[in-house]
């Protein structure tokens, strides 16, 4: 079966500093891919390249069998595809950020309604129904009328997940979704993520939550210094990693 997402030899440099040095992977529909690795290994950059928040320096991204048509600068570097193409791709790929990034001037419901209404073109009533359904799913329907500033971090992140889900994307990206939460708040967010995974949502998860990665993922990528150092199903990666670096990384994390 064709992969939902295929990344081929993806490279990214910031100025002269290479951050990604040729990453390739396939993401079949309905699977969860976890990306682990130390800070600065390129995990977040890789994720941000997938929905074009960063523009790769070289390489290919195929979404549902079709290549993302990057434009080329005269010096040969890649540029964003035409705005319409980029926006179409992005609305099919949802993203949850480390810092939640809810919009403070809108209510919880307003945050979730915004894209279905303005991007997908639903009517206000349809968008509200959809928003309420997804807020219910993350257990926050009662908070629909509140402003984000009045919620805890864990609640804000669950709203952010509902906001991404409301566009009914083909893939959900999680960029260290629990890293800025207090330990007692990570559980509620991880629980939502586990539910989504169990329902067959296609996800790429950049995380430091090793238990989550081990239990939920179909495949693990361990990144080191912008390259894939270890790649396999969690049972093998956690039990007998091939790479010495990955083994050390895991023993530090899993106590």
């Amino acid at each position, binding site marked *: 079966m064709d992969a939902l997402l295929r990344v081929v030899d993806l490279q990214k440099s910031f100025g002269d500093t290479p951050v990604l040095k040729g990453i390739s992977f396939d993401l079949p529909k309905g699977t969860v891919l976890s990306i682990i690795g130390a800070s600065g290994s390129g995990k977040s950059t890789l994720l941000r390249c997938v*929905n074009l*928040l960063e523009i790769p320096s070289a390489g290919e991204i195929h979404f549902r069998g079709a290549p993302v048509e990057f434009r080329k600068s005269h010096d040969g570097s890649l540029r964003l595809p035409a*705005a319409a193409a980029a*926006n*179409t791709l*992005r*609305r*099919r*790929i*949802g*993203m949850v*950020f480390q*810092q939640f*990034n*809810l*919009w*403070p*001037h809108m209510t919880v419901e307003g945050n979730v309604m*915004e*894209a279905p209404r*303005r*991007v997908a073109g639903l009517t206000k009533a349809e968008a509200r129904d959809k928003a309420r359904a997804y807020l219910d799913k993350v257990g926050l329907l009662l908070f629909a009328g509140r*402003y*984000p*500033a*009045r919620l805890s971090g864990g609640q804000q992140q669950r709203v*952010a997940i509902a*906001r*991404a889900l409301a*566009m009914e994307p083909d893939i959900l990206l999680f960029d260290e979704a629990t890293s800025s939460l207090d330990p007692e708040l990570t559980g509620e967010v991880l629980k939502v993520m586990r539910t989504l995974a169990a329902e067959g949502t296609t996800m790429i998860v950049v995380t430091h939550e090793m238990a989550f990665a081990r239990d939920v993922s179909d495949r693990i990528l361990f990144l080191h210094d912008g390259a894939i150092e270890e790649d396999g199903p969690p049972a093998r990666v956690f039990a007998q990693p091939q790479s010495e670096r990955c083994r050390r990384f895991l023993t530090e994390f899993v106590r």
Partner: protein
Amino acid sequence: MSETFDLSLFWEYRLVLWRGLEVNALVFVLSLVLGLVLGLVACLVRLAPWKGLARAGGAYVELCRATPEYVALIWFHNVAPFLVGWATGIRINFNPIVSATLALGIVASGYFAESFRAGIQAVPRGHVEAARALGMGSMLTFVRIVLPQAFRTMTPELMSQSIGLLKTSTLVSVIAVPDIMYQVQMVSQQEMKAMPLYTGAAISFFVLIFVLTSLVERAGLGTRREA
């Protein structure tokens, strides 16, 4: 001395003076609208990704902010029509209210542009990325996510700048706009009693601006709102 505060003369001419105040209000509103529109445009030009354009925007803002309103009024009334006439070949004069609106609006736009810029740049980048990641285009993101937040941040400053503009509108008598100060001068020449009229004008402006400032505070626009 008692004559200074004898406002009966001021009261006697209240209709003329009221009409003058209406002219102040008109000039104020017109130049406020012009200033806000030009200010937003100048700010966007200044933030444009093309260096040359951004620099031109920056130069416009600096020029506006470095021009005293008094000088701008006289320039726009006397020099600008001449330049327009020279460029188009049609001899024209500006109605003083037009000159005043242009002069005050354009000078104010420099200050408004800077407030807009500060407000826009204060919006966290992550908020923009969240919108883009949902497929919202740059224009939609700007209108729905950036601008409303920028407005909230800049409202207090916008309010104090607007009240400053209202004060500045009393300069327009210099180009014979029939505002309240102009009327006061006319009446005092007729009556040969300047002091009570000037005192009356000062008091009415104090009352007007004090009331406006209080309303702004009361509406909670003088301080940054929560969320």
